[in-house]
């Protein structure tokens, strides 16, 4: 669903929760008069299960869209090997091949991106513009952070990941 320029995506988990609670509500309202009398609150509440994730996705994606040009201007292109803990906070551009994709179903995808010098985790806290799959050659824009904020190996907090043509 598109709101303005932002393509809002709801995760499959949010949809599944909505479907499960819809079934429960329908079943409960068939058997219980008490539930039927509360439908005026329950139905909007049910839709909030979809609206809230959509609103959050819209807000995060619009924020990322605003950040993208800033990152494009500031980012330094680096090889994966050069990313280290001393670079925490730096904005980088990495080009590589996607080796693994995790948690895409949660709209919080995490990619393992590799170039000839090594591999690095790329975490994204919203859904990406493009559907990125394993073996896609991508350009990542993001900030170097620690995996667990204060500790852990350096990873890239991704603001933009886009497919680029293979040379």
């Amino acid at each position, binding site marked *: 669903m598109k709101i303005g320029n932002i393509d809002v995506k709801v995760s499959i988990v949010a949809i599944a929760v909505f479907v499960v609670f819809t079934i429960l509500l329908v079943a409960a309202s068939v058997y219980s008069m008490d539930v039927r009398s509360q439908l005026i609150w329950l139905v909007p509440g049910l839709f909030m299960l979809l609206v809230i994730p959509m609103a959050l996705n819209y807000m995060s994606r619009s924020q990322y869209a605003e950040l993208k040009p800033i990152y494009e201007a500031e980012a330094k292109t680096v090889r994966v090997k050069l990313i*280290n*803990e001393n*670079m925490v906070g730096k904005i980088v*551009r990495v080009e590589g091949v996607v080796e693994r994709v995790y948690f895409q179903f949660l709209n919080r995808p995490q990619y393992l991106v590799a170039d*000839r*010098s090594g591999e690095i985790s790329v975490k994204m806290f919203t859904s990406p513009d493009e559907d990125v799959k394993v073996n896609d050659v991508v350009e990542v824009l993001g900030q170097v952070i620690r995996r667990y904020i204060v500790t*852990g190996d350096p990873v890239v907090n991704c603001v933009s990941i886009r497919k680029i043509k293979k040379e």
Partner: protein
Amino acid sequence: MPGEGPGSNTHKWLELAVPLLSFGGALVAILSFTQGLPLDFRYPALGCVLASFVLAYLAWIRPKKDIVALTTPIYSLIFFIVPTEYMSGIILQLLYATSLTILVVRLKYRFGRPGMALSGGKELAEPLRTYVEQTRDVWTGISPEAAHHATVAFVRFAEGEFGETAQRSGTAAGQPDDVGNTPCLTRAFMIVSEHATLMDQSLSRPATYRTFLPEDSGMLAKPLLPAQDDDGGFYTTLDNALLLLFSAAWNASGEDRPHLLTCQAFAQKLLIGK
């Protein structure tokens, strides 16, 4: 090789201690149950609690942290601090011990070797130490200023401050008198300056670029392989230049060593990486 020092035996014992402690505790619980001995369930459960702490320690000393293993002590306390019925307590212990054993195997094979905070150490770890010691005698003639320039150039490069690295390396390369009888240090400064300039402007590899001379080969950490393509040669040259700066800085500027130690993990990565 890192992780194969004297400490690695201790780590192996600690890895073994996780299943031994957790299943040992469960075994004590089973024996006391079958023998009809009155024993509070929480005493044998201490085995699982201790095993969780050992697992968390093993996770903590790895550069790549496993948050699941790190949080097991919390779960062990939640599971075993509350008194429970004896039989279900034994089943809980057995399941928990199995989980810890799976986690320690996962930790061993998916989270790398133990390597306690390289950047926080007070000494150089292998194989960087060997390289720095091998090249120590070369740096006797360089001035403290040149060594300090090398420190700043290396540290700034590690921090991703490529503009400042280029500027500092360029300045150092323009003062050949400071490097004594080691012109290869000047070449290292020039190479780092060239690469840092390209990276600062996000430019790709030029058709021609600065390299070391054949007579420098004995001092380089990573040999240029004949089979290497242009990209490989270009980036290996940078690795060698940065490692030369690190060695020069370490050996000729004792005061700068704390700064170099904060970048040790990066230097190790340059040395052992592709």
